[in-house]
């Protein structure tokens, strides 16, 4: 039995070390679509989740596809200075933010949504207490949702969020606080 445990541990170790994104990125940059598919398989989960939270579930599939198509086009710019996943993640955010802009959603929306905040912040009815936390995030006004996702889910600092979204750090902090205050009503009880 000890041998099986040791082998299982070895198997996990080998699985992790052979996921060599850097090599696949080099191959994909030279036109190897199979290498690019391996990169896609390794990262699609995280990218799709980011898309679902940033642009909403209805547009998530298309946004995630756009990210990988853009990545294919930009692979020659990947220098391996950071992990491929980090590079792809940053690219994904830019693609998704650009997508919203091309859809004609202006930054003024960052200050809209009072009604949504009031709806979210009101105590939910008993039947809604189990409301999925992600659904509640999706119902936030766009500006607050993007700040919340970037800061609290993705781990960016306020100055980074501000740079990405073209807002001030103060606006980022204010939007984050409003989002958190609204979402606290939808925690599991």
């Amino acid at each position: 039995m000890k041998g099986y445990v040791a082998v299982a541990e070895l198997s996990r170790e080998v699985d992790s070390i052979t996921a060599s994104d850097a090599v696949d990125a080099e191959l994909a940059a030279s036109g190897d679509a199979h290498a690019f598919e391996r990169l896609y398989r390794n990262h699609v989960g995280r990218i799709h989740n980011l898309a679902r939270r940033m642009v909403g579930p209805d547009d998530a599939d298309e946004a995630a596809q756009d990210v990988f198509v853009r990545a294919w086009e930009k692979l020659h710019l990947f220098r391996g200075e950071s992990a491929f996943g980090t590079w792809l993640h940053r690219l994904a955010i830019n693609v998704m933010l650009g997508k919203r802009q091309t859809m004609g959603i202006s930054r003024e929306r960052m200050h809209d949504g009072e009604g949504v905040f009031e709806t979210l912040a009101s105590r939910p009815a008993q039947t809604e207490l189990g409301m999925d936390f992600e659904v509640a995030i999706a119902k936030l006004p766009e500006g607050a949702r993007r700040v919340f996702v970037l800061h609290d889910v993705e781990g960016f600092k306020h100055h980074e969020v501000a740079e990405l979204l073209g807002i001030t750090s103060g606006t980022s902090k204010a939007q984050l606080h409003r989002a958190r205050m609204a979402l606290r009503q939808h925690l599991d009880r």
Partner: protein
Amino acid sequence: MPDKWTELLSGYIDDELTGEERAQLKAHLVECQECATILGELRRVVGRAAGLEDRPPVTDLWPDVARRIGARVFLAAPAPKRRAPLWRRRVFSLPELAAAATVLMVLSAGVTAIVSTGAQRDLGIISAGPAADEVSLVSNVDDSFQDAVADLQGVLREGRHLLDSSTVRLIEENLTQIDRAIQEAREVLASDPASSYLNSHLANTMRRKLQLLGRANELILAQSL
């Protein structure tokens, strides 16, 4: 409800308050149960956000991605030079690649046979104890594996200057760890040579080494074009 205290709670959680603001809020929290409750809830929100689990997309997006990049590649580069089969690239004289591919197939087939035989024995279909032909097969496969590895590593040595140092380092680190995994798997297998699971694991680990070396060789060839 927004007041000067609740407005400070997120900054408190994120450690963004000045020392004076923090001290004043801490003193307030001792006296104000409502603010203390809200602070606890906000912390739970932050915790939930950090712990959200990733879910894969319901449908596989790859076919559409492949179609889109395929169309773009075709339009941008109609000449299929970059996609030519490796054996048609003559920048390197590398019959080792073809040999290695053959060996990989032999290795896979051999291991399948071993595992199949081992599994039958596990089920009591075959009496315990490795048969002579089975030992011979293991030996032959191992020899072929070592030959293929030697060939592929020769190509890697020859072409490593074409790769980024970070890529070379990554490949070498992975090879070192795979070698260690192979060695440990052999040691574990020595105590239970009839185990189909252990045989399969060793074969898979050996196959991973060939795959990694093969991919490294592909990369060298791609860089040399």
